[in-house]
């Protein structure tokens, strides 16, 4: 009898669940039809900076970093210089539908999407954007971008050669407002302890063979001179980083093996043009197998951090002075290097566009410059308001004082930086140091927001000789904040300026339909297999089985979809 009862109960629950579903979707459908007219309600002429006659409200999703203590004088994430500025200039009152820390923001966004309880506007990533478009939850912003985007924003967006707009265009409609950031953080340079190289009488490694020799010397010849066998040749990824950057997360992979893969022309995680001209996934190509074999040998010889993949933060051993080399983007002084020189002022970390491929070319993979999007809820009455807020941000960014509230508190903030921001900064600093140009020559470049303070302060922190960037010719303590930036430019970005980069782009930087269901599993399969191969727990030939599995478990179907997108 209890079994029957349980069955009955189950039936009831199932029925209830079904009927709920129906009403929910009906409601959603009604909501949509009612509010399709949202755009026409604003009858004012299109003015990118115009204030509203009556105060309008916008409820947004906002990322708030709990460790950011920059807000001063009783300001809150909802009431600060940025929100007041938006209120005064545009007559828009910002409210928070939700806030979340950077680590939890994506979860909150997913929850909002799944429950169809969207804020009026929010910042999302490419995956969420696609979900929102397919669920028909966000407004078409084509006309709004055309009519309301300020000339400055259009100029920056156009500097991406149409990639930014392409990323947000679905069926010919612009569904979101894209950002654009400097392209430098998509290239993963080789960072080396040059003081160790000098001590052991070595040169920066040009080829992969040299690279192995340097790593071996760093491990075996006690470069830190403490008499203990405690040094690491090449750092490996920690638990929050990847073996290599991929087409969905193409920037800022710390301590990965990107440089080794690309020196062998292997681009795992990227969509490439195959020999037959058709798209193919880089991870299943023979070059990748070859690169894995190289890494596997290096790992078994102890040249790579034996604790890779299990460390919580590979930066620790860089700071403590145990690591000799790692791959990372130009901004590593903002990462572990500041603490590393605090620990040991002689740690001379220099950055190189190495190792080179067999022809002597530097062939890294390149990133997309668009990673974030502002979307507007479909039935929001003022869909142009977020565009105006972004116009206002770019036009007034220099007015704000970051010391009384970090820029992240600007509602719906997107980064708008010219793609060549870091390269331009590096060249400008060199010119000023060489005396060929005066700081004043760079004052009139508003799109390069930090350039003025960079050129003004460079003499405080850089010591003579100006063309030598070794750590002893810097004075970090004079102005640590500016040192971090100048070191990122003159050391971190220098290889990108001085090298003729023969970079490789992914054919796409966003998801296709089947990827929504399958990609998580395929990615997991790939990550686990590759890590096991490198660490030697699986044989190299597991790779062939992986290729087979990858194709069968949806890879083939995804490849077809990518072909369609590319054509």
């Amino acid at each position, binding site marked *: 009898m*209890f079994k029957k*009862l*349980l069955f009955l*109960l189950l039936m009831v*629950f199932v029925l209830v669940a079904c009927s*709920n579903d129906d009403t929910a979707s009906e409601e959603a459908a009604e909501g949509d039809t009612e509010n399709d007219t949202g755009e026409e309600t604003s009858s004012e002429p299109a003015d990118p900076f115009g204030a509203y006659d009556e105060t309008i409200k916008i409820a947004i999703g906002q990322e*708030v*970093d*709990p*460790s*950011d203590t920059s807000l001063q004088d009783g300001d809150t994430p909802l009431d600060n210089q940025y929100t007041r500025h938006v209120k005064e200039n545009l007559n828009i009152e910002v409210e*928070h*539908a939700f*806030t*979340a*820390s*950077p*680590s*939890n923001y*994506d*979860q*909150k966004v997913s*929850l909002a999407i*799944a*429950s169809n309880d969207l804020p009026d506007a929010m910042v999302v*990533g490419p995956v969420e954007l696609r979900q929102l478009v397919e669920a028909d939850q966000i407004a078409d912003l084509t006309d709004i971008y055309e009519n309301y985007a300020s000339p400055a924003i259009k100029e920056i967006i156009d500097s991406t050669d149409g990639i930014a707009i392409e990323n947000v265009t679905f069926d010919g409609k612009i569904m979101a407002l894209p950002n654009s*950031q*400097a392209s430098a*953080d998509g290239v993963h340079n080789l960072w080396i302890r040059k003081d160790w190289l000098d001590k052991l009488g070595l040169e920066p490694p040009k080829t992969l063979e040299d690279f192995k020799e340097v790593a071996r010397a760093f491990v075996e010849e006690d470069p830190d001179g403490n008499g203990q066998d405690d040094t690491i040749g090449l750092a490996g990824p920690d*638990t*929050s*980083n*990847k073996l290599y*950057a991929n087409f969905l*997360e*193409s*920037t*800022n*992979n*710390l301590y990965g093996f990107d440089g080794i893969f690309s020196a062998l022309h292997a681009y795992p995680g990227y969509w490439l043009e195959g020999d037959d001209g058709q798209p193919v996934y880089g991870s299943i190509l023979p070059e990748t197998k070859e690169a894995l074999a190289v890494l596997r040998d290096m790992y078994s010889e102890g040249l790579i951090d034996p604790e890779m993949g299990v460390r*919580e*933060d590979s*930066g*620790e051993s860089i*700071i*403590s002075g145990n690591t000799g080399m790692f791959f990372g983007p130009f*901004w590593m002084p*903002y*990462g*572990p290097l*500041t*603490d590393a020189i*605090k*620990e040991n002022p002689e740690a001379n970390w220099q950055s190189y566009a190495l190792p080179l491929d067999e022809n002597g070319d530097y062939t890294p993979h390149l990133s997309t410059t668009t*990673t974030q999007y502002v979307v507007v809820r479909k039935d929001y009455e003022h869909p142009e308001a977020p565009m105006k807020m972004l116009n206002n941000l770019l036009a007034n960014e220099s007015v704000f004082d970051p010391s009384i509230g*970090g820029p*992240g508190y600007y509602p719906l903030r997107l*980064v708008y*930086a010219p793609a060549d921001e870091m390269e331009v900064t590096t060249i400008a600093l060199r010119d000023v140091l060489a005396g060929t140009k005066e700081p004043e020559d760079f004052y009139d470049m508003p799109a390069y927001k930090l350039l003025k303070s960079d050129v003004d302060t460079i003499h405080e922190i850089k010591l003579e000789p100006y063309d030598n960037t070794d750590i002893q010719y810097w004075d970090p303590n004079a102005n640590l904040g500016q040192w*971090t930036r100048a070191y990122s430019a003159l050391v971190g970005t220098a290889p990108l300026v001085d090298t003729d980069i023969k970079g490789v782009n992914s054919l796409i930087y966003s998801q296709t339909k089947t990827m929504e269901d399958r990609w998580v599993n395929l990615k997991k399969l790939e990550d686990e297999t590759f890590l096991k191969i490198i660490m030697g727990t699986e044989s190299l030939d597991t790779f062939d089985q992986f290729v087979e599995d990858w194709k069968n478990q949806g890879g083939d179907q995804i490849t077809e979809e990518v072909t369609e997108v590319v054509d």
Partner: protein
Amino acid sequence: MMRSKSLSSKMADVILITILVLIAITCILPPLWYTLSLSFSSKTAAAAGAVALWPIDFNFDSYKQLLQDSQFFKSFWISIQRVVLGAGLNFIIVPLMAYPLSKTVKDFKGRNVLMWTLIFTMLFNGGLIPLYLTIQSYNLMNSVWALVLVGGGAQTIVFNIILTINFFRNLPQSLEEAALVDGAGPWYILFKLFIPPLSIPVLATVSLFSIVYHWNEFLYGLIFMTREEFYPLQTYIQQLVVSVDPSTMTEDQYKRMSELSNRTLDAAKIFIAMIPILVVYPFLQRYFIHGITLGSVKE
């Protein structure tokens, strides 16, 4: 069975207990001690991973900074409210439901239906999104009641009820019969006879479960609270210690990362957050084994 208390067996006892205590200490103490050392160390040493057993560059900076963090204390207060309400509710509901359910079907006709309903909720639930929508339509978002009433809180209660039912069933039948003969009704039996004198062990146990659950749970705090100011303490701490994937960071985020990353302060917060449970535990723990095992064997 009589236990012979010869000298050698006493010796064996002492050795066994010493070994077990040592194992327990090596399992439990290092993480606690490490967190404490970290909280007293300098920032640079912590970032370099140099801190092991003893603090490096001993200082109180983290605790000074902690005192100025108003959100920490706000969240602390919310967590206390949650524990008091949650454990209080648990304390009221559990015996009230467990007592009738500990009767047989002969005495209480609907007993099995009710019991199955309870177990059903333990095994199945609607999932996160329906729960979120429910809480939203009850207007409980950002309210401490959302944390007290739903999700794991409710599931803990069901588990506790089952535990208590078994405990009540194991109390001598003759006691209750004697009380009935003397004219006591069910209310009198429950509140004068069973509670508090007979049921202290089980009530202490279920309260402990409930307190620990409500103090430690963080996910619902994240889901049902839209702003940090409403977060309970563990949610507040979770967002500090979960590392951010740098590949999704924008330029200005990673520029602030090094300035803001502060493991020593996080360690101080974690340590302070552990204290309430460390204080409550010893007082309730002596009833603990008694409370669980008494209900476990049926005669």
